[in-house]
């Protein structure tokens, strides 16, 4: 059972209290597996306790990528969060811990 880390790379971005996680397959042949397994429900389950709001998923086959837009995930937002990583810059590596 591989971790996502073996199949894909990820970058985390932020807008207010929303964390935006890209998930990009290294190889195009792995994109269908990501699209099938890394569902909104799977991401919510994996990131429980971090992602407190709704999650939207965009499929981007041209880029071999999925984009996850996770609301209420940054402790109220960059500017008032009590967390050390207020931007959620490190959340990319939390997503890559997911086993698929």
């Amino acid at each position: 059972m591989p971790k996502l880390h073996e199949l894909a790379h990820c970058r985390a971005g932020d807008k207010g209290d929303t964390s935006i996680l890209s998930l990009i397959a290294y190889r195009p042949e792995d994109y269908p597996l990501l699209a099938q397994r890394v569902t909104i429900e799977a991401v919510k389950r994996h990131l429980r306790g971090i992602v407190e709001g709704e999650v939207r998923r965009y499929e981007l086959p041209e880029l071999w990528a999925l984009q996850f837009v996770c609301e209420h995930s940054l402790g109220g937002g960059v500017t008032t969060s009590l967390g050390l990583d207020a931007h959620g810059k490190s959340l990319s590596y939390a997503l890559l811990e997911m086993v698929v």
Partner: protein
Amino acid sequence: MPKTPLRIGTGAAFSGDRIDPALVLADQGELDFHVFECLAERTIALAQLRKRKDSSKGYDPLFERRMEGLLPLLGKRRFRIVTNMGAANPEAAADVLIAIARRLRVPLKVAVVHGDDVLDRIDLDSPTMETGNPIAEAGSLVSANAYLGAEALLPALASNADVIISGRVADPSLFLGPMVHHYGWALDDFDRLARGTAVGHLLECAGQLCGGYFAEPARKDVPDMAHLGFPFADVDAEGNAVLGKVSGTGGRINLATAKEQLLYEVIDPHGYVTPDVIANFATVRLKETAPDRVAIDGAGGRPRPAKLKVSVGYLAGYIGEGEIGYAGVNALARARLAGDIVRERLGAAFPKLRIDLIGSTSLHGRSFDTEERPYEVRLRVAGRAATAEQAMTIGEEVEALYTNGPGGGGGTRKYVHEQIGIVSTLIDRERVTTRITFKEWNGHAEAA
């Protein structure tokens, strides 16, 4: 026919970015335009606070250092600079720049873009985009800046100014402006504007296109990161481009780095909203054409939004923090005990106290690795307070663990930070009027 391609480089991804890669790009990049994007969400509100204390301040803190390095190169090369380093006070930045030009004896004309500051005209009853509640509920406002688009830069670009200084301009618009000016694109040519916006979006975070915020040993290796190069784009008349960096600089540009940056902070890949256009990035095609060269085309555009986004800064009190470290046998248990002690003592005054175990669960709230037992761990306690004095009590409580807490606690630190909160709202375009002023030093001796 305008020169093709147009080469645009990035000199900064944020206010605190490295300066030397921007100078390498200025010197060796054969640039037409050098763009410095230095305003994160909060930056302009913090600048506004500095301006309140000293009316000659409020521009980028590294502005002088950047410009002292750039002006001698500007005298030798033929590029122009576009930057939002004016922050809350573009006029003062221009004054400082003219003084540097005179001192370094580099003749210089500066254009200043005004109009983003809308603190005196926002509707306090208008809803925030975050919660829908009126802006007035945010409390004490310190700044309100509309995101200007490429259009606001055009009169300055049409002049012969060497440096164009603005406050808040949408990040990709700083790059799109020079393209629109150079190729004469119409402001309703939304496909070209979208392609140019995609290029601007890829460039705006500088090192992040070249392997910064990307590298991972063995999995995603990036060479010579200590000398990471900043990127440029060769943009053609259609808005398609080839991304690259100066040879000999560190870093790497490839499909993987470009894809990560294309999707970075994009809330809707089918509709990336700027003041200029709504761009579809889902149709973007990227292709490696040579080492450290990636070609981009394929973005599509829809008409620009009717209103402009406004970023509003408000005073959000203070955060106090304290830290202490534990190591060796049972380090985690001793750190947890220390956290429990502080929570018991401060819980009444700080109901939302945050307790982190750095080295274990501070970043994600838990560990995804069940086996991990850190050799050392650092307790961090943080809480929000209305005053700096109250915020300081958190660090003081943690510091008192030296003599009152678990065994072997060492290396305490305490911090207090003033907090600026940000909310967003929308404003009618008609309520935002922009204008340009100029300042110049022509290289002649001053009149007595």
